[in-house]
């Protein structure tokens, strides 16, 4: 076996392999999947000297710990967190050398939810439909990391970026999601539609890679029942029977029968992926383009 590999020492709450996902297969029932915060994943890849489609690790709240069988360059970014190599503090958001056999510790986030770990050369588990992403809805791609999981690494394509740090805005104290009316806004009363963009919500701890769930006022329906299954987009604000809006993230089902009241402007979704449970949330209307 090649010595270019990572060995998982502590998988954390949920750490998955992610890349840009597998769009283009929704008609077969395959979710797009991929990193929930694509700009953060792209940045750690760039800093590590990887192409934009290299696979990285996505952690959830409490990081992970890894050992490398060979000396590699790693970059930890996304949600800010302490980083240590061999027990000594190391840089977050910048290339770090991880000597062979030393432990990389990615700590619990100080803000946000998901940190990203890029390794120079990328993680090269076997792709499925052109992507190495773990899709938690359909089970495609590698299983979430477990203690002892071995992750093969690719050969470096380019030198790591020559930077000390790359600043990025931290996760905001309040999540503001711009929305346009969705295909089934007419399934809600005028009051329900108004409530969506005027009332205060919070991010629910039941949120996951499939969707950002919310706590707050239930949206009043004008029609009961379910729709015949219809295609769902990333960022769809779907309203299940409990009336609390849920924003579809990367592992969302490709079709569904609960009405979609609105759709979140795609550039706002990375912030949604970094909004910790309890974060205040507002939906604000945007005009038609």
């Amino acid at each position, binding site marked *: 076996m090649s010595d270019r590999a990572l060995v998982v020492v502590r998988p954390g709450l949920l750490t998955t392999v992610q890349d840009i996902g597998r769009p283009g297969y*929704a008609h077969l*029932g395959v979710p797009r999947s991929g990193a929930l915060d694509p700009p953060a994943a792209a940045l750690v890849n760039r800093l590590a000297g990887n192409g934009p489609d290299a696979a990285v690790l996505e952690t959830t709240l409490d990081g992970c710990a890894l050992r490398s069988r060979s000396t590699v360059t790693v970059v930890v970014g996304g949600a800010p967190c302490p980083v240590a190599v061999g027990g000594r503090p190391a840089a977050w958001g910048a290339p770090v050398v991880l000597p062979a056999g030393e432990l990389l510790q990615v700590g619990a986030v100080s803000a946000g939810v998901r940190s990203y770990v890029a390794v120079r050369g990328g993680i090269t588990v076997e792709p499925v439909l052109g992507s190495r992403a773990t899709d938690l809805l359909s089970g495609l791609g590698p299983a979430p990391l477990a203690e002892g999981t071995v992750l093969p690494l690719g050969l470096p394509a380019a030198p790591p970026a020559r930077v000390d740090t790359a600043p990025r805005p931290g996760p905001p104290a309040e999540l503001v999601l711009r929305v346009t009316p969705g295909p089934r806004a007419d399934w809600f009363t005028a009051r329900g539609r108004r409530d969506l963009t005027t009332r205060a919500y919070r991010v629910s701890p039941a949120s996951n890679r499939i969707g950002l769930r919310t706590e707050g006022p239930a949206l009043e329906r004008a029609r009961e029942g379910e729709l015949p299954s219809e*295609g769902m987009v990333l*960022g*769809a604000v779907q309203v299940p029977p409990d009336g609390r809006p849920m924003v579809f993230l990367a592992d969302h089902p490709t079709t569904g029968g609960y009405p979609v009241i609105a759709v979140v402007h*795609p550039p706002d979704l990375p912030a949604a992926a970094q909004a910790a449970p309890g974060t205040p949330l507002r939906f604000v209307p945007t005009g038609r383009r």
Partner: protein
Amino acid sequence: MRALPAGREALLIEADSAEEAGALHAALLRRRVQGTLTVREIVPAARTVLLDGLPDPARWASELSSLEGESPEPPARPPVEIPVRYDGPDLAAVAAHWAVSEREVVRIHAGTEFTVAFCGFAPGFGYLTGLPARYAVPRRATPRTAVPPGAVALAGPYTGVYPRTSPGGWQLIGTTDAVLWDHTRDPAALLSPGTRVRFAPVEGP
């Protein structure tokens, strides 16, 4: 047919019937092949077709009429044949719903040519139409926690085949050894929207 907004990069087109949705789906696929439609995903469903990753949804919303009334092309390929042992635990319940014998259920089901209307629920799970409306059946009151792969099942107007073990509330009428989904195969999905399907009865086990 009407266009419904679905964000800045998508359009949901709602048809007046399942048949119209099928014809619309075929018309959109033709436009993509011709190069007159650039879009990341064309996702058919029960009564709708979703265009996702569409650079200019407003333009297509205003050009819907150009998509109406196209007749579907004659099928290019013979139907996919799926061998089935009609041994499902809900065969008797389906026979009761249809008010026919179990043998007659098999004759009717295996005598029908199906079309994959759309996929969803799990990779490779197709919603197959073709049975007359009078043979629609309800879902089971209590879904099973684990339906085995290859289970051939009915719910509402649809027939489906479970690609892998999953929870499910459909009425199970049979079992197939056909592999519905294999991501190491090209194509991974045995069934994709528009595919015609026939079920061929085989003796167990």
